[in-house]
C-alpha cells in the first residue's frame, strides 16, 4: 500500500497534468485532482476520461479558483480531505500543481519520506524576521482586509489598502495564531494535515484567513506550526519566483540544470516543453544517487536574471535599457582617464604614457578634425567611427560606446580646449572618470606655433574661454569624477610628482616609481610670450603665476632629450 499521495490543483494544460497524474498513479501513488471550475465542462470530462482507467485517481468537488484568494485554499482542503478519507494508507500528502513535473523517480521521494516519517516539509517563516514578499504587504497582509480581487479590481484593491493604512486599521489576529508565510507547495504528514482540517476552531480560523492576502501562502504555513511535531521549513518543490512574484518557468534547455538540482519536483514547466516531459516521465528515468535536493545552481541562474532585470549592466545603453539620469548604476562601464593639456606641454605624451601604463593611449578623441584613436585608424572597437560629424552628433554616446566596447581595457585619452566640449558635464558627473587638467597648457602650443600674433591672440582668447567653462563644470557641486586641476605654473613646479600622483590613483597601473620623464617642450622665451599676450590686452590667467625672470625649466637640459631621473 502506498504511503505517499498527491493532491493536484489544475487549471490549464490539462493534458500535461494528466500525464503527470498518470505517472504517479501508475507508480502506486494515489492522486486526488482538483480542477478549477472555470475549466469548461467539455474539457473537464475529457480530462477525466483520460484518466478513467486509473482506479487510484480521484476527482474532488470543484471550486472556482482565483489567484491570491481563499478559493485556492478551499480547493486544497477539499482535495486533502478526500485523499485522507479514501486512501487510509497515505502517510504523506504532497500538494502539487498541474504544471509540476517530478524530476526524480517516485521511489526516491518515497524512500526519502519513509526515512523521515514524522517530518512535515513546509516552508514556514515568520513575517517578523524575513521579508517574504516583494514590495510591501508583508505584515499588512495579516492585518488588513482584502475583499477586492487584485487581478480584476486592482484599483479598488489599492485604494482599500491605502484607506486602511490611513485610518490605521488592524484586524484582530485569532488567539494562538502566529502568522507564518511560505511557498504554497507543501508535503505534510497525515497527522499534521488532519489536525489542521479537523481543528475544532476551523470555522473561526477560516473566517480570519478568508480575508488575508494570498492565504494559500499562509494558511497551512501558519497552522502547521501549531500541530507539527517536526517541521522542515522548506518546500520539496523547486519553485522560483521573479521580482513580480510570478513563478519562473522551465523550458527544454533547463534539462541539465534540473537534473543536477536533485530536487524531487519542479514547478512550473512550460506545457510545450516536450523534451522535459519526455525525459522525466519516461519509465527508464532513474535517479543517480540518493542525494539531498540542491537547488543552489538554479537559484544562481534566477538571481542573476533578477539582477539583470532590476540593476542591469553598468554603462550599457540599448533599446531595452535607457536609464533616466541618476539611475544608471554607473554612467559608463569602466574607469577611464582623460588628460587635459598634457600633450600641449609634453612632446609625445601619448607615447610616453602608453609605455608607462602598458596600454593603448588615444590622442585627442574629440579633436575637431577627427577622433584620434590610438593607431590612427578611421574606426575603433565596436566599429566606432572617427568621423567628427558622426561623433559630434552625440558625443556622450560616443564616449559611452567607447568605454562599453573596450570593457576590460582601461581607456586613456587626451583632451584640450580646442576639442568638442559637449560631453564635459557628463564626464564630470561620472564616477568612472579620472580627469587631470593642466590649465593654460594650450599657451605652450600657441607659443611654438608659426602664426601671426593677432591670430594667436584671438585663438588664445577663444581657448581660454572654453577652458574656463570646462573648469567651471568640473568644479560644480556634485561632480563625481576623480578630478585634479593644476595651472601650468603649478604643474611645472614638480611635474614628476604630479604625474606620479595621477598614475597612483589609476587602478591597475604599474606601481613602480616613474623613472623616465616625458619630454617637456622647450619653454625658453615662454614668459615673454605670455607678457606679449598681456600687453595686447589678453590676460592668460589660467596659466597661473608664471615666473617672469630667469625662468629655466628645472627638469630641462640643453637638448631636452636626456631622461630625468628621480633619486
Amino acid at each position: 500500500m502506498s504511503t505517499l499521495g498527491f493532491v493536484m490543483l489544475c487549471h490549464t494544460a490539462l493534458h500535461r497534468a494528466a500525464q503527470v497524474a498518470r505517472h504517479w498513479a501508475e507508480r502506486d501513488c494515489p492522486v486526488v485532482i482538483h480542477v478549477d471550475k472555470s475549466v469548461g465542462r467539455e474539457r473537464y470530462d475529457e480530462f477525466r476520461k483520460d484518466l478513467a482507467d486509473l482506479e487510484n485517481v480521484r476527482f474532488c468537488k470543484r471550486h472556482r479558483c482565483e489567484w491570491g484568494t481563499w478559493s485556492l485554499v478551499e480547493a486544497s482542503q477539499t482535495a486533502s480531505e478526500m485523499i485522507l478519507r479514501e486512501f487510509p494508507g497515505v502517510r504523506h500528502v504532497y500538494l502539487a500543481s498541474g504544471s509540476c513535473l517530478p524530476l526524480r523517480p517516485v521511489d526516491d521521494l518515497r524512500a526519502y519520506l519513509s526515512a523521515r516519517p514524522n517530518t512535515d516539509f513546509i516552508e514556514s517563516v515568520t513575517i517578523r524576521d524575513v521579508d517574504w514578499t516583494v514590495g510591501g504587504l508583508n505584515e499588512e497582509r495579516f492585518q488588513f482586509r482584502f475583499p477586492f480581487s487584485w487581478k480584476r479590481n486592482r484599483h479598488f484593491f489599492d485604494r482599500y489598502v491605502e484607506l486602511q493604512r490611513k485610518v490605521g486599521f488592524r484586524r484582530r489576529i485569532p488567539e494562538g495564531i502566529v502568522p507564518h508565510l511560505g511557498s504554497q507547495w507543501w508535503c505534510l504528514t497525515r497527522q499534521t494535515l488532519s489536525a489542521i482540517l479537523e481543528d475544532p476552531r476551523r470555522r473561526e480560523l477560516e473566517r480570519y484567513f478568508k480575508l488575508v492576502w494570498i492565504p494559500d501562502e499562509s494558511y497551512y504555513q501558519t497552522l502547521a506550526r501549531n500541530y507539527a511535531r517536526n517541521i522542515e521549513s522548506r518546500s520539496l518543490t523547486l519553485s522560483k519566483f521573479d521580482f513580480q512574484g510570478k513563478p519562473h518557468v522551465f523550458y527544454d534547455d533547463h534539462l541539465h540544470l534540473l537534473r543536477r538540482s536533485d530536487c524531487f519536483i519542479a514547478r512550473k514547466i512550460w506545457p510545450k516543453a516536450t523534451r522535459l516531459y519526455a525525459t522525466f516521465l519516461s519509465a527508464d528515468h532513474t535517479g543517480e544517487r540518493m542525494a539531498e535536493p540542491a537547488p543552489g545552481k538554479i537559484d544562481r541562474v534566477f538571481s542573476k536574471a533578477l539582477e539583470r532585470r532590476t540593476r542591469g549592466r553598468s554603462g550599457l545603453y540599448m533599446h531595452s535599457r535607457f536609464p533616466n539620469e541618476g539611475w544608471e548604476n554607473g554612467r559608463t562601464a569602466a574607469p577611464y582617464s582623460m588628460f587635459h593639456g598634457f600633450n600641449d606641454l609634453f612632446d609625445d605624451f601619448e607615447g610616453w604614457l602608453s609605455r608607462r601604463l602598458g596600454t593603448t593611449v588615444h590622442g585627442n578623441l574629440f579633436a575637431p578634425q577627427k577622433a584620434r584613436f590610438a593607431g590612427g585608424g578611421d574606426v575603433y572597437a565596436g566599429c566606432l567611427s572617427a568621423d567628427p560629424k558622426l561623433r559630434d552628433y552625440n558625443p556622450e554616446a560616443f564616449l559611452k560606446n567607447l568605454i562599453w566596447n573596450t570593457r576590460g581595457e582601461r581607456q586613456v585619452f587626451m583632451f584640450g580646449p580646442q576639442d568638442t566640449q559637449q560631453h564635459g558635464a557628463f564626464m564630470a558627473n561620472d564616477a568612472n572618470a579620472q580627469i587631470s587638467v593642466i590649465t593654460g597648457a594650450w599657451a605652450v602650443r600657441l607659443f611654438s606655433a608659426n602664426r601671426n600674433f593677432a591670430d594667436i591672440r584671438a585663438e588664445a582668447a577663444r581657448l581660454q574661454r572654453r577652458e574656463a567653462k570646462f573648469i567651471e563644470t568640473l568644479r560644480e557641486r556634485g561632480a563625481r569624477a576623480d578630478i585634479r586641476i593644476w595651472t601650468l605654473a603649478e604643474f611645472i613646479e614638480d611635474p614628476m610628482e604630479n604625474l606620479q600622483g595621477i598614475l597612483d590613483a589609476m587602478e591597475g597601473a604599474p606601481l613602480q616609481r616613474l623613472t623616465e620623464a616625458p619630454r617637456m617642450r622647450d619653454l625658453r622665451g615662454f614668459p615673454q610670450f605670455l607678457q606679449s599676450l598681456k600687453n595686447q590686452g589678453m590676460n592668460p590667467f589660467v596659466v597661473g603665476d608664471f615666473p617672469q625672470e630667469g625662468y629655466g625649466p628645472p627638469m630641462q637640459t640643453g637638448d631636452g632629450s636626456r631622461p630625468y631621473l628621480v633619486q
Partner: protein
Amino acid sequence: MKAARRYALRLERRKYLVRAWRKSRSLLPVADRTDAIRPKDILCFCTLRNERVRLKYFLSYYRDRGVSHFFFVDNDSDDGTREYLAQQPDCSVWTTDASYKRARFGMDWINRLLRLYGHGHWCLTVDPDEFLVYPFSDTRPIPALTDWLGASSIKSFGTMLLDMYPKGAITAQPYAEGQNPFEIACWFDSGNYTIERNWTYGNLWIQGGPRARAFFKDLPARAPALNKIPLVKWHRSYAYASSTHMLLPRGLNLVYDEWGGEKTSGVLLHAKFLDIFTEKAAEELERRQHYAASAEYRAYHDGLNENPDFWTRWSEKYINWRQLEILGLMSKGNWA
C-alpha cells in the same frame, strides 16, 4: 502628460485607423486562409514587392520558430512573389497596385489587416529581410516567449534592427534561394549606436551602424531609425504610427527600462545587404516610393556605385543570440 496631449494622441491613433480602412480598399484578396487561424496562433504580417528569392528562407525561418499564419500584402510584384505565396498553405495574401508611399510605406495596409485579424493574437510585423532573434531563440520557439510575456503582463516586445553585411563588396557572393542569408552577410557593428528619447511617443530613437557610418557621415540626423517593436499582443484599437518604430497608444513603446534595469529584448537581423540589393536600390530609387524622398536609397545608390565594403577589422562575426546578449545588443532581462 497633459490631458490635451493625451487627447491629441488619441485622435492621431483614430486617424491612423480610419486611414487604414480607407487605404485598405485597394487591397484585393489573392488567397484568404484566415479560417484556419486558431485562438492562440502567432501571426506574421508583411508587406513586400518583388522578394521572390527571399521567401523560401523567410517562411521556413519563422515556421520553425512557431509562427502559425502569415499575412502578406503584395505591392504589385512581377517576379512571381504573389503566385508563390498564394500556394503556401499557411499564407493569406492580398495584392494592390496602389502607392506604397501613400499608404504610409505600407503601414496603412498592415494596420488594417492587424485590426481585422490580429486582435487577441501575438502579431509579428516584419519585412522579408528581417529575422527575429530573441533570448533562447535557439532552444525556445516564439510561443515560449509570448507565453512568458503574457504571464508578465507585457504587451509589446522591443528589438533593434541590426544591419548585417558581408565581408567584401556586397555583390561578391550571390545569394541563392533558400539559403540562410547570414551565411553571406554575417558581420555587424557592435557598438556605434546612438539613442535618444522621443518624448512625444515615449519610444527610443536609435541610429547608427554600418549605414550611418558609410552613407550618412554628413547628415547623421538622417540616418535610418533602428528601433523596432515588431511583436505585439494586438488589440483592435492599436495602430503602428511610423513603420514598426512606434505604436499608439504610447504605453506600448515603453519596451525599455528607465530605472537602470534591463527589459527582455531581441534583435531583428537585417539581411538587406546581399547582392540582390543593388538591383533593388536602383529600382526603388526610380520608383521614389520610400521614406524621405528615398534619400536612403539615393545614398545607397551613390555609395554602392563606389563598390562599398562595410567590413572593418572591428566588425563582429555573428555567432548566436548569446553573443548579441554579451555585446549588449539585446537582453535576457529576467527571462531565464
